């Protein structure tokens, strides 16, 4: 049978606030275990949480950027469960009055716009981390991450394929990056997602039974998990079976998911209003103040790149999907580089190097101005395209001014007419046969002679000038 896939996603994003959600500990990644926590974020007896207002600012910003309505009178609730990484044995979250509700984001799938609903965005605190001893029989708790502020963004079940879900995730990520709500560093766990997936026969209105997948730590893993789950459920249904509602754990190394708990084992979190905190009252002025801080979003930036610089839609999409990349692009263009050339370098060689080195656009070691200078050197004819690639490699290795690198690596192109003519004359005097061939109308001879001049110049001679001067010399010969 043909099935339609239905996907909904829950994305957890760590907010880039300066301090944690309920105490004044710095909100920074890493650190020696248990050095970035205090009695409040580790839930010591008698301590009380005080909500960091910036967390509300950031969550509302995310809500406005995803077209949500903002809850005027919100509250926080306790989600009760026991686990050693949760020292209060409850997580302060939001249950029935999330800060943001009923939004959407538009995504581009195969050139078409699809609108994906956002059910809600709520604020909550992160838990700590358990470190399991590989050799002994011990587990250790690191509470550094306790109280790191999170937003959970819950989508409607509006996605119909793993690819659509991937684009949704990419789009959402770029919105969070643009608004600087989250640094979205996947490798630091700033962005994590849970996947809900079900199948239904094509044409059927009711949803099928869904499974939730946890422990999905990258977008690539999300796509793989969804593809796996799609296949697993289809096989069950094709065999006349019934999909059990359950939570499954994705194992990205093995590429499989295994059951974690069934619907019957579903935990009762006994949510109730957090009595240690007061309601979150959001005025219209507050919302407008936050709205005024929202920068140009990826969608708008993309339109600008197409309209103002004439970039192809695809290029504009790729460049704007990462804010750092787009900021880099804007920087280089502002420094006078040709937009199309900047785009080509960013999308081509620079992206390739980033991929190879597993770096993010934020990790580009040189400045947009330095890239602009390198492009100017090509356009002036100081270096060739192939020399430029060597310069780029060098800029990644040790960021320096391109001129200095050209000098240091001896990559400057020879554009001195006299010098090139001397080389041409040498080559011609050694290749009389080629001259004859050229005169006889054999075009290949021209190519051969250009190659010889280039060889003599050790690749540094300006190719356009070789062409022009060689042709003149041959015509005179």
């Amino acid at each position, binding site marked *: 049978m043909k099935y339609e896939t239905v996907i909904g996603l829950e994305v957890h994003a760590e907010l880039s606030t300066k301090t944690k959600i309920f105490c004044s500990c710095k909100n920074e990644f890493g650190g020696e275990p248990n050095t970035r926590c205090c009695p409040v974020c580790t839930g010591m007896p*008698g*301590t009380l949480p005080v909500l960091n207002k910036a967390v509300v600012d950031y969550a509302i910003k995310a809500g406005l950027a995803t077209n949500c309505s903002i809850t005027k009178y919100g509250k926080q609730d306790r989600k009760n469960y026991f686990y050693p990484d949760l020292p209060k044995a409850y997580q302060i979250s939001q249950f029935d009055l999330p800060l943001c509700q009923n939004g959407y984001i538009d995504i581009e799938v195969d050139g078409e716009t699809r609108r994906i609903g956002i059910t809600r965005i709520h604020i909550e605190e992160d838990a700590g981390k358990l470190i399991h001893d590989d050799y002994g029989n011990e587990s250790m708790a690191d509470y550094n991450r306790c109280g790191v502020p999170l937003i959970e963004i819950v989508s409607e079940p509006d996605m119909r394929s793993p690819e659509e879900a991937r684009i949704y995730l990419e789009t959402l990520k770029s919105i969070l990056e643009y608004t600087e709500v989250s640094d979205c560093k996947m490798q630091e766990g700033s962005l994590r997602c849970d996947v809900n997936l079900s199948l239904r026969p094509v044409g059927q209105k009711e949803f099928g039974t869904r499974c939730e997948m946890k422990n999905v730590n990258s977008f690539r893993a999300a796509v793989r998990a969804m593809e796996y789950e799609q296949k697993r459920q289809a096989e069950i249904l094709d065999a006349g079976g019934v999909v059990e509602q359950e939570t499954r754990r994705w194992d990205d190394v093995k590429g499989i998911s295994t059951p974690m708990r069934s619907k019957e084992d579903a935990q009762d979190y006994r949510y109730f209003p957090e009595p240690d905190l*007061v309601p979150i009252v959001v005025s219209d002025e507050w919302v407008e103040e936050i709205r005024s801080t929202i920068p140009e979003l990826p969608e708008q930036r993309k339109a600008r790149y197409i309209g103002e610089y004439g970039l192809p839609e695809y290029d504009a999409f790729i460049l704007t999907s990462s804010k750092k990349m787009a900021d880099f692009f804007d920087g280089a263009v502002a420094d006078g580089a040709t937009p199309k050339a900047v785009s080509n370098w960013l999308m081509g060689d620079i992206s390739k190097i980033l991929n190879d080195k597993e770096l993010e656009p934020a990790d580009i070691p040189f400045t947009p101005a330095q890239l602009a200078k390198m492009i100017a050197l090509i356009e002036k004819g100081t270096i060739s395209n192939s020399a430029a690639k060597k310069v780029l490699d060098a800029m990644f290795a040790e960021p320096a001014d391109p001129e200095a690198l050209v000098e240091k690596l001896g990559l400057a192109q020879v554009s001195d007419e006299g010098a090139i003519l001397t080389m041409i004359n040498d080559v011609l005097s050694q290749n009389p046969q080629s001259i004859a061939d050229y005169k006889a109308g054999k075009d290949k001879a021209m190519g051969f002679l250009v190659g010889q001049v280039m060889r003599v110049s050790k690749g540094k001679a300006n190719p356009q000038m070789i062409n022009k001067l060689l042709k003149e010399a041959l015509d005179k010969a």
Partner: protein
Amino acid sequence: MDLYTLTAHEIRDMIKEKKISSKEATQSALDRIAQVEDKVESFVTVLGDEAIAQAEKIDAKIASGEEVGALAGVPMALKDNMCTKDVLTTCSSKMLYNFKPPYNATVTEKLAGADTVLLGKVNMDEFAMGSSTENSYYKKTKNPYDITKVPGGSSGGSAASVAADEAFFTLGSDTGGSIRQPAALCGCVGLKPTYGSVSRYGLIAFASSLDQIGPMTKDVKDCAMVLDQIAGYDAKDSTSVNIQHPNFEAALTGDIRGLKIGVPQEYFGQGISEEVTAAVNAALSNMKAEGAEFSDMSLPLNEYALPAYYMISSAEASSNLARFDGVKYGYRAEKFNDLIDLYCQTRSEGFGAEVKRRIMIGTYALSSGYYDAYYKKAQQVRTMIMNDFGKAFETYDVLVTPASPTTAFGIGEKTSDPLEMYMADICTVSVNIGGLPAIVIPCGYDKNGLPIGIQIIGKPFDEATVLNAAYALEKTITKVKPNL
């Protein structure tokens, strides 16, 4: 004259006037503790050397002319659920038998800032759950007026130590009557401030929306004086309210002419002993003689306060006490098989029966499928009771009721019947539900010489009126010290 018999404000004044040193006052209190503690058993921890060292430090400050805090040199004790840095804070539970917090509660800080001397930590019902202090893991505190009787609870150690002259004042905490009921049973003064008046930071929570710290003292003036030190906004407690408090001690005029007193009839019904009713009525007559007016009135929803209280407080407690899991601090079971077993064994062994009962009630009330019928319903009742009070205070300045249905009952008398024990809070719980301020002072003694308490309830943040009414009434009452 033994210094320990004096009130806290008398001690404060004598130290200020350099008639005595803080060390003398502290030594007197420590001597008294040594003398009667065997009988009363109100302390979990006595800080003998530390208290003397602190007193000497304050004396040195005074001698050098340095500026000192408002209660400089006055020795006091804290209920053992208030965090004291590097000093055992057990909540009278096995669960926290070794817990020394690395931080102070805000009240601890404030009293340290006022240059008081900490004598030690006083006993309580485990995690403040109980009405007799019999639920302490460590010891059973006795009523100084009759050591076969309970001191009330949960702040039984706070009340008994003040009544026995072991401490010049103490702090208690009150979730459903835990300051006022023991104050009534031990014949001392106890005030539960308006919810939000005193910071809860560092008070190990029982029920967050009801808990409030307050003074337990020898007289009303002491009570106002201590409240002046501990009341006020605290940025570390989101539920503390940022308002300007008057100077409570200075506001004590004793003039209650024209004060309108409402007497809710629901507090004088079944279960309230005749002697208690008679003493409260006599006190009302005294207040009338001082110029106040009183009339009978009704708080029709009062009967729902106790069940609503047990739902809400147990629900919050089930969550607040979940952190005691044997992982990070406190008691951990010696033998366990896996993580779940670690939790089960630790909590089974570490908590006493009453605490476990409340955790189970609360967990049940919050469970999916029962939440609406219990927790949500109780919250609705709470709102209605608050409205009931709000209406009453449109007519009256204060409400006057008994503080406890009976005088102190015998040790072991009610331990087998939790519901009967819960009824001991019948006069006090609705005040917590309403978030209101209320004071209890002694208004007489029964035929066996046991103290009878009277409760004066005020409008939110109107502690000044409550204190002043109590101050006026106190002047008409002859107090009797216990004979230890």
